[in-house]
């Protein structure tokens, strides 16, 4: 990517079952101590790639399972609030997650052994990312491309850029600020939160922000 242009990348994911399951919150806690970082990343970040049209009540798989299968909404809420984006790396997030579960089952021990409707199954994802040969040079071209690329591309540039590639900002915000010099729009784009929205909603919010900037009322 040159400083003047933006190259869109797309991505798709193959999910792999690890053959590992947790039959209670206590077991989830124990499994989280040893399961691969890839799997924790999958269930807490990569799951956003599956929120294409509808954002589920909880953003991550752990909280969703605790709410719908264990029926412990208070714990689901505590698990859901923080994401790996709030921590320096996935290992720090793992420690946080274990701490939240441990504290809850210590305080309310009957929760730890409660039998869920169905077990939690650990997966991991294999992401293939590749350039789409879609290159834009200004805001008008960005607006057109945002409407045409696949959901994986929206995910890749807003979530994966920060989550896996460790960038401080999403790719769209970075390019709008660094290449186009539009700081206010960049801030607005950076505030679009993919953790609490579907990719459909993220795309719509991006398009709306660029449209308003183009009309001069951003």
């Amino acid at each position: 990517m040159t400083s003047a242009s933006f190259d869109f990348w797309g991505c798709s994911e193959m999910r792999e079952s690890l053959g590992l399951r947790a039959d209670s919150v206590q077991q989830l806690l124990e499994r989280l101590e040893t399961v691969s970082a890839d799997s924790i990343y999958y269930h807490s970040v990569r799951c956003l790639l599956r929120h294409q049209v509808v954002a589920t009540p909880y953003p991550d798989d752990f909280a969703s399972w605790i709410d719908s299968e264990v029926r412990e909404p208070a714990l689901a809420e505590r698990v859901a609030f923080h994401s790996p984006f709030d921590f320096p790396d996935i290992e720090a997030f793992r420690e946080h997650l274990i701490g939240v579960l441990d504290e809850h089952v210590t305080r309310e021990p009957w929760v730890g052994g409660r039998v869920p409707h169905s077990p939690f199954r650990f997966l991991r994802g294999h992401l293939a990312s590749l350039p789409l040969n879609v290159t834009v040079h200004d805001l008008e071209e960005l607006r057109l491309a945002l409407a045409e690329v696949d959901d994986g591309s929206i995910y890749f540039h807003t979530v994966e850029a920060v989550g896996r590639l460790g960038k401080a900002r999403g790719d769209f915000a970075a390019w709008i600020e660094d290449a186009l010099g539009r700081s206010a729009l960049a801030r607005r784009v950076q505030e679009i939160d993919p953790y609490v929205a579907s990719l459909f909603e993220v795309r719509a919010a991006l398009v709306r922000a660029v449209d308003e900037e183009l009309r001069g009322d951003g």
Partner: protein
Amino acid sequence: MSEPRPRLADYEGIAPPGSLVLIRRLAESLEGHTFLHVNSTREGGGVAEILSRLLPLLDEVGIRTRWEVIDGEAEFYAATKRIHNTLQGADAPLTPQMKEAYLAASERAATRLDLVADTVMIHDPQPAPLVARREDGSRWIWRCHIDLSHPQRRTWTFLAPHVGRFDSAIFHLAEFSPRLPIPSYLIHPSIDPLSDKNRELPPLEVERRVAALGVPLDRPLLLQVSRFDPFKDPMGVIRAFRLVRQHRDCVLVLAGGGASDDPEGTETLARVREEAGDDPDIHVLLLPSDAHLDINALQRAATIVIQKSLREGFGLTVAEAMWKGKAVIGGAAGGITKQLVDNVTGHLVHSVEGCAYAIRRLLGNAAERERMGILARESARSQLLITRHLIDYLQLLRLHAS
């Protein structure tokens, strides 16, 4: 009349934005890759249906596909049916004679079939022993379309060594996957929006077909399309309908096919007809296996589509209804829970009363039905169409090639 061969461009405006570009880009590095599929039938059944639609699309993007079919004598089919049933939990013995017939058919097929390809995908247990003939450098993948969560141990012990010789296995859901020494990938099945079962139909054709089936359209229409199988709970649907009828006038259609050569299906159908009795508003339709356009018309005419399964594989009838923009009520079982987001793209229910309540709620709220239908269609577009399946297969080939 056979359906026209699909082309990728036909899906422009139907598949999600950008997905055709992604498909072509994913395929670029696989140009000339040879990809062989082996299953046990070229016609009939979900596997043959999806292969007949997917392989032309793979060909079009540069993957050189072939499709071979393993066959055998009556003993072979008796053995594979027993393997199929016991892998899904049935309690019946797999006799030494059956094992022998099963392995002998594979031996014969191995001498007859051309098994040379960069990647070989073996569908279901029938051709699994062919893996013994794999050549160096090729990748062999076992695509399992059935639920292996509770296999009969003796049958699984017999089959597992064959499965262990593949490079990887693929299951519809994590719940269906046993613990294996090879990677287990997950790929949902899909529907083809351009097939006769799912393509757009003019409203007049919908009305004509539904009328020809004897189903009135003067009141709200509730529909369940499925085999007459106790696990699809047709009796529960009738009981839910009767609870609803205490509050609202409506019509129920239970439509299914393929019972003629299935003793258990015939028995269930008889019980369903007995339960329906002489109620003129319950229509039990036994349709031929190629009645795709009639099913399409019924789904489009329905006010609400129900799939109140107690146990379910993936449940693609849910995807079919979602794609047609219908509000769907599904039993919270198997793949239905992966397709419907409860209260958003449909309702998940756990009982007859829950089903009846969801029907009453949706019948009384056209705005909710419409909102749910729109989200259901978009959700199906992004996750349940053949174009997503194509992306998954291309990604799988890239993963194995790397």
